[in-house]
């Protein structure tokens, strides 16, 4: 099953509650917690909601978000909870326990 821009947008804004910025020709989403920029990704503003994101680009986004491609796809498709992702970030020491709890409460 493909992943569309509208799925990604929904996940980034509603589930992860990333901060949205219009960054020139791109739309940028940043996962920010306790004044720290944990991860960020962007995509072309020209992409419409029904544009199916190529696998290779999803892979690059997953790298930017510090998680494996399979987890990134499962997160967007809401087959995996955000807590699993935040745990992965905690395990990599990209966030601390306080950050983890803050993110989970959102």
């Amino acid at each position, binding site marked *: 099953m493909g992943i569309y821009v509208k799925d990604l947008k929904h996940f980034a804004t509603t589930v992860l509650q990333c901060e949205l910025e219009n960054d020139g020709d791109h739309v940028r989403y940043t996962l*920010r917690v306790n004044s720290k*920029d944990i*991860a960020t990704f962007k995509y*072309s503003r020209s992409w419409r909601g029904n544009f199916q994101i*190529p696998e290779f680009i999803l892979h690059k986004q997953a790298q930017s978000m510090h998680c494996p491609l399979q987890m990134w796809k499962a997160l967007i498709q809401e087959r995996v909870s955000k807590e699993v992702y935040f745990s992965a970030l905690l395990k990599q020491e990209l966030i601390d326990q306080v950050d983890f709890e803050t993110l989970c409460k959102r």
Partner: protein
Amino acid sequence: MKAMILYLQETASTKLYGTTGSVTTSISYVDLRIANAIVLAEDTNNCNIREGVVISRLTPQVSAKVIQPFSIQLFLSEEGYMAVSNLCNICELEKTRGEAVRSYLYSLVSEFVWLQKHEESLSRPLQEELNRIRTYIRMV
């Protein structure tokens, strides 16, 4: 339409991107034409971005100069050409190879600007990415 302009400048000791093979002192105000020339100068899908190349954008008005050569890799997909490099995780998708290279260079400058702006609050991998980009380009 992209509100950016790509300037490419080279020193007298380097060859002009393209097929003439002549020694050229500088090229000013070039955009897609030079991006296409970069692509045409390569036999493979590895495009070498040479030291001295200046990438300028108008909004916001910033320029970055290549201080160490790097490669942009192009991949053909059903949707078009994807451009990536080892500098960071950005990926640009365009219809042609030249457009992909141009977009990648613009996007790289944007990424650099964003990372510098947020330097104080970056996580370890983002800080590493900024440091890596800094070894290849600098703002001018």
